[in-house]
């Protein structure tokens, strides 16, 4: 049975349009599920809805988010926060703003273990050292005593990964974790996330707009357009034989660095028109 299952999730801007159109997806234990789509397709919103960090301007209209069979949307907010805190974690997009500049790195990893999960401080610190070593940070002791501004971006992203795995969560939402990094560091970080995820057996909801990244790390993926899942399949099938025309166009639009004469291919107008028509049809059915 899948660990996370989202059923017919419908999000709306307060007093505005639909952000997610009956989104459903399943993530099994230890599975990496990619969410791809262009900006504004709603991929980050899914992650935020799962973690309970949606902006105030967004409301959940209907649907279920089941964590290990429990509908978190039906829970009392405080109980839900405790459950999420104990079982889920976030690897954020921008390592430069994801560590609090006012605190040293060590406490930022250990505080939530101590304050929220009630670990003894010594145990939390030992755990933090162990994890920093696991993400290949050479001098864990020194790094834990540093302030974030003293460390490089790649280093900070490693710390955030270590921090995400600290409480042995069952599910991690990675919200474009490599987008803010340069290409060489991206590759290392991606490998690291993959290795950590496999070793800890964590389910991962991986938000990205980079199909190259998806091919390296994910087992399944959902392609989103305008808040609607247009294709939900396993990665092999997707790259060999994408079913939906929008998926095919997205794949064709992936830049090929090996061929400099090959210019960028945009998604054809006709495909956009098709998928827009599908969205309109879905809206019509929802309205009816």
């Amino acid at each position, binding site marked *: 049975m899948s660990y996370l299952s989202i059923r017919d999730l419908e999000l709306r801007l307060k007093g505005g349009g639909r952000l997610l159109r009956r989104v459903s997806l399943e993530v099994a234990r230890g599975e990496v599920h990619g969410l791809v789509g262009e900006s504004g397709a709603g991929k980050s919103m899914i992650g935020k809805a799962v*973690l*309970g*960090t949606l902006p*105030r301007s967004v409301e959940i209209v209907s649907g279920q988010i089941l964590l290990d069979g429990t509908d978190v949307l039906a829970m009392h907010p*405080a109980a839900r*926060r*405790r459950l*999420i*805190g*104990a079982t*889920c*974690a*976030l690897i*954020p*997009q*921008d390592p430069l*703003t*994801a*560590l*609090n*500049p*006012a*605190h040293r790195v060590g406490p*930022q990893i250990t505080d*939530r273990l101590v*304050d*929220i999960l009630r670990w003894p401080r010594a145990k939390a610190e030992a755990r933090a050292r162990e994890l920093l070593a696991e993400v290949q*940070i*050479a*001098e864990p002791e*020194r*790094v834990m005593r*540093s*302030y974030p*501004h*003293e*460390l*490089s971006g790649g*280093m900070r992203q490693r710390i*955030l990964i270590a*921090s995400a795995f600290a409480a042995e969560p069952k599910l991690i939402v990675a919200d474009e974790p490599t987008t803010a990094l340069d290409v060489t560091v991206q590759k290392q970080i991606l490998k690291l996330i993959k290795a950590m995820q496999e070793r800890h057996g964590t389910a991962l909801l991986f938000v990205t707009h980079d199909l190259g990244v998806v091919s390296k790390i994910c087992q399944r993926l959902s392609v989103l357009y305008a808040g609607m899942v247009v294709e939900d399949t396993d990665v092999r099938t997707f790259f060999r034989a994408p079913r939906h025309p929008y998926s095919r166009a997205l794949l064709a639009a992936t830049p090929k660095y090996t061929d400099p004469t090959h210019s960028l291919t945009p998604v054809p107008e006709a495909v956009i028109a098709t998928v827009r028509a599908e969205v309109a049809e879905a809206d019509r059915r929802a309205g009816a």
Partner: protein
Amino acid sequence: MLDGRGAIQHRAGPRLWLSALWLGLLVVLALGAPWIAPKDPLAQDLMLGRLPPFWIDGAEPGYWLGTDSLGRDVLSRILWGARLALTVALVAGTLTCLIGATLGLMAGFLRGASDLVISRLVDIWMAFPPVLFSILLVAVLGPGLFSIIAAIVLIDWTRFARVVRAEAMTQGAMDYVASAQVAGRGRIGTMALEILPNVLPTIGVLLTLEMGIAVIVEAILSFVNLSISTDAPTWGGMIAEGRTSVHQAWWVLVFPLLALFLTVLSFSQLGEGLKDRFDPVLR
């Protein structure tokens, strides 16, 4: 993998030292005024009126900065006046900061209804001309230390609220706040433990600026005779008196003005200097 970023040192720089030096000196002089001041600041002696400072012919020994038209010692009056100026700066500055920063933090981070109420209140408040408002307030409350402080707090809390609100909003949008929320921190906990430490440098700068402003407001109120009792030594009062006899005895105007100027300047420079040194975001 650790690069040189941790090794960047920020030197304090002359403006931090000079302003701290002046303010430190002023605190010592103000506290020690009963023992340090050469004369009784209230003692009048019409025979010794308008004596010049010590380096000008006609000066009397013991009256270092001369006397005013009633024969009161200018230096002693400045030292006693510093007590009131500093008391107002510290008490009014701190109270304004506590109230304004708390409201600003709530408005900026909690948003929603609290933001709506607080921001509208700030807008309305800022429509009043501050100096007239303070004069009006003290006139209604009656002169006295309490009224001066109340007037400053009531007028200037908006300064903190506005800036802290903006800063809290910026910080609230950062990823570390989302991480804290995912980890299970509540709204108030996030505000106090995650946001506040990052807004503190700004609050510190505002606080020192506010202390300078409080000194000015106190001087303005004493200038128009609305501070504490009429003959008590205040910088504003001395400036008002000195103004009437500036052609005969410039020193009665210039020395308290100089004290006021240096103090306000030092407060603002102290804030900037501390920010350069301690702000983690700028480091």
